[in-house]
């Protein structure tokens, strides 16, 4: 088991470098340079050139990239914002925890809602427990997260006046955002769990269990579920991508001070350093979580676990 974890951790490092390199490379294609952006449109060209030279802007690409990474790792220095002229790290850090919290609660809620509904839909196939959630899941899949948020806003903030539509401060401020983030992945989880369950119920070992004299309840909970939930774990990991997109959009919509809304706000100002830093931080967190999901899966699936814990007999 430890071999597997070590192996994956070792892969983590080149992955992170690969990820940061790709993002850095894309952002490098943005027109404009730091000197002009920070000093302003009217600054003399000589000053701009000097500023750029100081930052090492005229060095070759790879050197710039490695320098950037060095600064991040050793000094937590992400550069200076083109917009506010403040160190990027100071702006980004406080917002980080909000985004992470939203994402974590979102994932948890999506799983807690979606998976049990999926199980119920599979066990009571064709009943209302199946048809209603399935139809709802279908419509939800056709609604973008920001539209969902706006609809929630319309109903609960405007018409019913129950919840506030922007800002932070109390739990109420977070109810609609969390719902908007969690509902689409929940629908996806529900569909996936249902199909995984149905797939497993068809398997031969279920027939063997029945032939042993098992009660239907035991068959479902002990046999089918244990097998059906394995791919669901992976699927929840996969749905993180959608979840992050939802978080970014929802932060913007409900004006919550997270990294997502920061990135989006700075786009119009072409504030490269901030956008770069925000993107890299979220991607690294994402990569780590995916790693966690993989390791968890290896723990719970005995077929994979056995591969790494003992030699084949």
């Amino acid at each position: 088991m430890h071999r597997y974890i070590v192996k994956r951790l070792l892969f983590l490092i080149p992955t992170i470098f690969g990820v940061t390199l790709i993002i850095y490379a894309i952002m490098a294609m943005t027109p404009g340079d730091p000197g002009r952006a920070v000093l302003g449109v009217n600054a003399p060209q000589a000053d701009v050139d000097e500023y750029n030279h100081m930052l090492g802007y005229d060095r070759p690409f790879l050197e710039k990239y490695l320098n950037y990474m060095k600064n991040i790792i050793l000094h937590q220095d992400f550069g200076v914002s083109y917009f506010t002229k403040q160190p990027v790290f100071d702006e980004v850090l406080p917002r980080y925890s909000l985004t992470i919290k939203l994402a974590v609660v979102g994932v948890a809620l999506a799983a807690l809602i979606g998976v049990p509904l999926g199980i119920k839909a599979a066990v009571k196939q064709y009943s209302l427990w199946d048809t209603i959630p399935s139809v709802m899941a279908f419509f939800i899949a056709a609604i973008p997260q920001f539209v969902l948020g706006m609809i929630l806003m319309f109903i609960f903030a405007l018409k019913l006046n129950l919840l506030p539509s922007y800002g932070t401060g109390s739990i109420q401020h977070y109810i609609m955002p969390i719902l908007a983030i969690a509902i689409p992945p929940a629908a996806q989880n529900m569909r996936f769990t249902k199909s995984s369950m149905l797939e497993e119920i068809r398997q031969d070992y279920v027939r063997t269990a029945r032939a042993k004299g098992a009660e239907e309840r035991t068959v479902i909970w002990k046999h089918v579920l244990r097998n059906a939930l394995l791919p669901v774990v992976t699927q929840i990991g996969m749905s993180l991508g959608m979840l992050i997109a939802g978080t970014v959009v929802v932060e913007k919509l409900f004006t919550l001070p997270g990294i997502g809304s920061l990135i989006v706000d700075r786009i119009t100002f072409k504030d490269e350093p901030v956008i770069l830093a925000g993107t890299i931080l979220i991607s690294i967190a994402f990569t780590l979580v995916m790693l966690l999901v993989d390791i968890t899966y290896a723990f719970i699936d005995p077929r994979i676990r056995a591969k790494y814990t003992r030699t084949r007999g």
Partner: protein
Amino acid sequence: MNDLILDIKNLEVIYKTDLETVKAVNGINLKIGKGKTLGLVGETGAGKTTTALSILRLLPSATGKIINGEINFEDTDLLKIKEEDMRHMRGNKIAMVFQDPMTSLNPVMTVGDQIAEAIKFHNEELSKEEVEKKVDDKLLMVGILPSRKVEYPHQFSGGMKQRVVIAIALACEPDLLIADEATTALDVTIQAQVLMTMMELRNRLGTSMLMITHDFGIVAKTCDDVAVMYAGEIVESGTVEDIFLGNKHHPYTEGLFGSIPNLSTRSDRLTPIPGLMPDPTNLPEGCTFAPRCKYSMDVCKKFHPKSITVEGEHSLLCHLFNEKIMSQQMEGKYE
């Protein structure tokens, strides 16, 4: 009456979907004596597995329906008892070994747990240690080291997996064991080993068996009685001597023997039976085998044959052995 462990009468089973009705089993009678082994032979699609599943009432609930008949197990009609009571039978009094060992076991449970489960379902009063001891015994019985009970199915080869399946089936020492093509999916050499294991256990425990197979070799080695199934009907049944040594046979059985390679007789080519089994959604009128039968007469196409006893236990479903009809044939008319 009392030395029969299983007595099936007039069993009819269909599979019904929105589109069509499949007549899988059409009025069969089967008897298995206590401690005896009955071989149920036939091609794929004849209705053998359906019969087996019906005994355990494990047909797919959405489509499978038993529309007629009795399945008497030791004086109890299984078709009339409650589901709860049926569950007590399964794995306990009547057990089944299925065909494909690769998929019959739960991949995420240890082998030991799966055997233990079978024991625990029917012996709730046993302590954990007692159950574990039994699990060890069963594994030894099928020739697997008890220390392997913590391993998962994927860590075993095909033959060993099937042994585990047999251990599960015999965990509660059932009175009747149904083996549905239990060795078909295995390599030939492994087949022989697994078969031997099954036979040893059967002899030791005195279990009655329903051995479903399409392999006459297995029938010859293991069975006391034989029933040949075709298109949902038993076309011939008798003791193993009747079938192998007798000289009166259903044309289908004859065809089956003719299509088996035989080391002792010289032959140039095998003679398969031409054609295919009839479509179970659209069975022919009259005898179901008539379209493929080289002896078929006009009467065969119109009238469904009755079961004729030729000698002792040996009976056939064919007009050729019906004296009345044959004499009418001679005279050139029929009823």
